């Protein structure tokens, strides 16, 4: 084998090297921002009261139950990952449950929805079974995608769930296409397009929202701003931190909501979905949230401070809902424990189901490459 000893580069170097301007080096620890305070204990805001009145006791408790199911499902998912029953990339939604649940109760069943790889919460909230979701992650043929997709790629045609997607920003045009279909056929469906704040730096975001605006497509673009794209604090990679203000650039409405308050998510999504259904105008909604776990199961999340994490955990969407429902007298500790026990049993059952399910047969390998 011929090996060269090092020699000088062939190109002539420019005489002066102009520095590339980057933001000054920051403190490595991200800035701690304290999340919005939980609802005042003594007095519910008028808005919350209205939302609760509209939903009623049963539905409100169902929503809390779903958040808890997602939480318990993902806690077990972590365990199953550690036991190597689940492999690949696995991104948890823990801390962000209020967005999926608020949305699921605000949308009509046939409205479309698409999201990123962080898709377990949406799948369950849309009514996919814990069995088919867990089995998918176990790589079993009983999984929602026959074991072919895994954690990042849950889909359900029945629920008009166009999937979990692995390429950051890749699902945004796809969701826009579902909105296009609704307009094309004159149905009254709305397409709900979810993505992380990291994705708004992709061209696919800008191209899609512009298309939806010029063609009046019934699409809602929801940024799940959990403040980090992997280890990157959002403030390091965006030109405006109030992300929903980007709506101005597309002449559409932009607004923010507390993504850790399920009743607020419900109310805002309900209003926006109905408005979009009527006007066929897109909007950009920023859900301010936080993920309690690392980017994926294998990320220790060292880039953020314990104080910051704790502050958000104090605003845990599930505790918050529990508190509200307790305050209005719809829930006591016993009720909560009972619900918790029930959802835990459902999750255990999904693991049993997945364990006992068969792997896909080898004939599956080249099936579904073409339809």
């Amino acid at each position, binding site marked *: *084998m*011929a*090996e*060269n*000893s*090092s*020699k000088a*580069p*062939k*190109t002539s*170097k*420019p005489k002066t*090297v102009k*520095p*590339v301007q*980057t*933001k*000054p*080096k920051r403190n*490595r620890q991200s800035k701690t921002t304290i999340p919005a305070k939980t609802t005042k204990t003594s007095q519910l805001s008028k808005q919350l009261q209205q939302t609760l009145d509209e939903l009623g006791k049963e539905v409100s408790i169902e929503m809390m139950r779903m958040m808890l199911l997602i939480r318990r499902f993902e806690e077990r998912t972590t365990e199953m990952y550690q036991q190597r029953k689940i*492999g*690949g*990339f696995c991104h948890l939604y823990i801390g962000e449950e209020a967005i999926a649940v608020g949305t699921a109760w605000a949308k009509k069943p046939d409205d479309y929805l698409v999201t990123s790889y962080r898709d377990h919460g949406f799948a369950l909230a849309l009514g996919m079974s814990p069995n088919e979701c867990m089995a998918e992650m176990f*790589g*079993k*043929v009983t999984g929602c*995608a026959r*074991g*072919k*997709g*895994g*954690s*990042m*790629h849950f889909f359900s045609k029945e629920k008009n769930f166009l999937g979990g*997607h*692995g*390429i*950051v*920003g*890749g699902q945004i045009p796809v969701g826009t296409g579902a909105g296009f279909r609704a307009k094309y056929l004159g149905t009254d469906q709305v397409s709900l397009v979810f993505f992380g704040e*990291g*994705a708004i*730096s*992709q*061209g*696919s975001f800008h191209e899609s929202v512009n298309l939806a605006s010029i063609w009046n497509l019934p699409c809602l673009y929801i940024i799940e701003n959990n403040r980090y*794209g*992997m*280890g*990157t604090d959002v403030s390091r*990679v*965006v030109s405006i931190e109030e992300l929903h203000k980007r709506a101005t650039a597309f002449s559409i409405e932009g607004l923010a909501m507390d993504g850790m308050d399920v009743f607020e998510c419900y109310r805002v999504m309900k209003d926006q979905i109905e408005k979009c259904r009527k006007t066929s105008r897109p909007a950009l909604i920023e859900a301010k949230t936080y993920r309690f776990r690392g980017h994926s199961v294998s990320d220790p999340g060292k*880039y953020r401070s314990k104080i910051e994490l704790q502050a958000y955990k104090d605003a845990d969407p599930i505790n918050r809902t529990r508190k509200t429902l307790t305050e209005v007298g719809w829930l006591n500790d016993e009720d909560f424990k009972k619900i918790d026990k029930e959802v835990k049993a459902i999750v255990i059952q999904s693991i049993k189901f997945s364990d006992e399910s068969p*792997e*896909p047969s*080898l004939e*599956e*390998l*080249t099936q579904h*490459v073409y339809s």
Partner: protein
Amino acid sequence: MSTKTITIREALREAIFEEMERDPTVFLFGEEVGEYNGAYKISEGLLDQFGPRRVIDTPISESGFTGLAVGAAMVGLRPIVEFMSFNFSLVAMDQIVSNASKMHYMSGGMFNVPMVMRGCNGSAAQVSSQHSHCMESIFSYIPGLHVISPSSAKDHKGLLKSAIRDDNPVIFLENELLYSLPGEVPSDEFTIPIGVAEIKKEGTDVTVIAHSRMVEFVKVALPALSEMGIDIELLDPRTLKPLDIETIVRSVKKTNRVVIVEEGWRFCGIGSEIADQIYSACFDYLDSPVVRVTSTENPMPYAKNLEVATLPSPEKIIEAIKSVTYRN
């Protein structure tokens, strides 16, 4: 010549470090390369050493930052673009194919684009359809790009240094599952020229051509093969474009039998090109048709059993070698 043992991860880091020290126009950018020290820790410590002017964290904007690198390279800088994985280079494909690869030609030789695009390529562990692409044949198709895909620590270091010094856009394909593989590298500075293959093991019976992680797969098959009395010659092209066909032909003329292993799909794979060149150059020397070991023709499934069935394996390689030696 004294040597030291380092991992492929360290080899890459040393190459980047040495070239950044040597040439102030070389800089590194990509997602999480700085403060997070790299998604796969290739760039660990480089931000501390070179500061945020030269080790730059980007937003998730592959098309934007790759195109920016093309422009910067046209006017005298030498960017190293890290794709967190080559799957995400697809977002930047227009910049790579329409701009980087053609700028020199369509400007009549006026501008060149001395940049390196590097990151991990191929499947990892059950990361499913959108995260398991083998990009070598896609890039190798494009005139104007060099495509490198090494297998050892030494080759990674020596070839990355050459890639950074090269005046063309270079696609440098690594593999996540190889990053922790140790190997001997010279202690002193060295480079390995682009476009030169290496015989990793000499042998007389079959020429087995493999690159990147597939070299390790072939090595796993070696004991079983020698038990069968088959002495293979293991040839790693290291650079896929330009392809060192002379070294390949020399080996084929000696062994008269060829197996080509690649992780990518069969149709229009790298092996198709290599086989074609072999047939053109030394058809009369072949005692058997060339046999290829590739992935099956499907997107990568998540389920472990299907993933295993999709990918090449030491067993599949042994079967192919048996077939060209008519042992089945």
